């Protein structure tokens, strides 16, 4: 535990003593702030226009019109920025030779992985904490946003960000080159982001695929051809599909479990990648 904390603190410190944390947070706040401002302006303009019409104005909802697009934007910015945050985590350690110290210290590779992950998570929390000013601003403006869906949205962004971090860390463990770590992480995240675009068109069922692969044996064995479609399966692996309910303010444990599983899986594989030095 002490080792994990030491590594995590060092990692967080490195982010905040280098320009990286400020650049990333700055750009994040700038972009999400712009979207927030734009949708807030639009919302207040609509409020003014329909002020005389009680039916329309009752349909205007600050959560739907301001908070929801804000979380969507944050997701996209994370997709672009988290590879930059994670690229140096393990790749740099190997390139500069500090890995040689880290891995000859009495720490396990699991502790290293967790420490690195938590260190990066601290930066993520910092970035999100800065944006907490937005809901406070809405409240100051007199509109009454519903706080619970807002918090659920934050939870969703946080969980998605953690999943992104874990995947980025995994890619960083595989190379010494930070650029490759960043490009690889970006590719992996984007792939998992768009993977559900197939969900509509890939209507072939999984059982049918298995049947073709096994040359008819699948059906003869009585496994049937019904069940989930390939597209459905792909969309349930999508990092963004599980985020949509959070955006709407719906808290569904399925999605929480999904993101936590992604984090766990990615960290586990990262640890295995580090250990693989032992038999290579």
């Amino acid at each position, binding site marked *: 535990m002490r080792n994990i904390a030491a590594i995590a603190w*060092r990692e967080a410190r*490195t982010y905040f*003593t280098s320009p990286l944390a400020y650049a990333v947070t700055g750009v994040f706040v700038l972009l999400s702030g712009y979207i927030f401002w734009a949708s807030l302006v639009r919302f207040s303009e609509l409020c003014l226009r329909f002020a005389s019409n009680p039916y329309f104005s009752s349909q205007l909802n600050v959560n739907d019109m301001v908070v929801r697009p804000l979380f969507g934007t944050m997701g996209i910015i994370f997709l672009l920025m988290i590879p930059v945050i994670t690229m140096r985590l393990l790749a740099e350690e190997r390139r500069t030779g500090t890995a*040689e110290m880290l891995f*000859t*210290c*009495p*720490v396990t590779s699991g502790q290293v992985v967790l420490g690195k992950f938590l260190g990066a998570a601290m930066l993520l929390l910092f970035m999100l904490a800065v944006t907490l000013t937005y809901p406070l601003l809405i409240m100051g403006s007199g509109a009454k946003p519903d706080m619970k869906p807002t918090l659920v949205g934050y939870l969703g962004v946080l969980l998605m960000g953690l999943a992104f971090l874990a995947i980025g860390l995994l890619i960083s463990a595989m190379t010494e080159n930070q650029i490759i770590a960043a490009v690889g992480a970006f590719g992996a995240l984007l792939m998992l982001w768009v993977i559900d675009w197939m969900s509509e068109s890939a209507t072939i069922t999984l059982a049918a695929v298995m049947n073709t692969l096994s040359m008819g044996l699948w059906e003869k064995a009585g496994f049937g051809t019904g069940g989930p479609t390939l597209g459905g399966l792909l969309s349930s692996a999508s990092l963004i599909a599980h985020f949509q309910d959070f955006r709407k303010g719906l808290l569904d444990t399925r999605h929480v479990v999904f993101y936590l599983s992604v984090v766990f899986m990615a960290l586990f594989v990262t640890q295995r990648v580090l250990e693989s*030095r032992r038999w290579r």
Partner: protein
Amino acid sequence: MLEVSEVTKVYGARTVVKGVSFSVSKGEILGFLGPNGAGKTTTMRIITGYVPPSGGTAKVAGFDVQEQPLEVKKRIGYLPEHPPLYREMLVRPYLEFVARIRGVPRRQMRARVDRAIERCGLGEVRGRLIGLLSKGYQQRVGLAQAILHEPDLLILDEPTVGLDPSQIREIRSLIKSFAGEHTVILSTHILAEVTMTCHRVLIINDGRIAAEDTLERLAARGERTRQVALRLARPGDGAEAALRALPGVAAVTAQGGAPAGFVVEAADGQDAREAIAALAVARGWGLLEMRPITRSLEDIFIEIIRESAA
């Protein structure tokens, strides 16, 4: 303290370490000598557990590096060839971080870090950014990092590379001061380093141990030569032939110059020095100098490397 037996390391088609065995007892300073690419670094990495061996075992204080890596890692301090420094950190916080993951108890932390800073002469730079320090200071920070938890076994891979002569001296005396309480293994390709700091030398070449001996015994090898250098003030024309005719002389080479130099090589098991002296006096050659030619450690080192390569 350390027992290495039949360690091998294969990288793809290349065998870097080909069955190395040796042991080091407590308090000893062992020099690891060999040309670049001989397998020194790989052997050290295997002992530290950074690289797994392809075969064989390494045991530190009775713990196998592969079986109980954490127990081994608690007992070693390691300075790799390139000092493992986080360039964006300050010296003191860096050492505190290393102390923490090295498992130094919280209470002793401050004292241990202070002691390492003092021993390595880092007092003036303790608040500076590591990346901006000179190579010499960076090397010292690397050394401080390796010693701050008072390890039983200290492994130093070319600890004096990149230092200026006075810094090299300081580091050497620092290393010497560890003898007794700590066991030290240091690798180098500079012979003088071994001569000045180590008790015992292990010469490694092409992945094998070419020689293992104490420094005195290695030096003694150099004294067992059969050559004698002569310098004569007035050798006549027949001096060379007369020397060659002496009993027990195998060969004579005239080296010319004034006063004239000769190298006389004795036959096996014979010592011709007395006869040479008597002859020189009898003929009135004016014997200015006669000394046995000993080989320097450098020559012995190169000879051992050549022999092992053949």
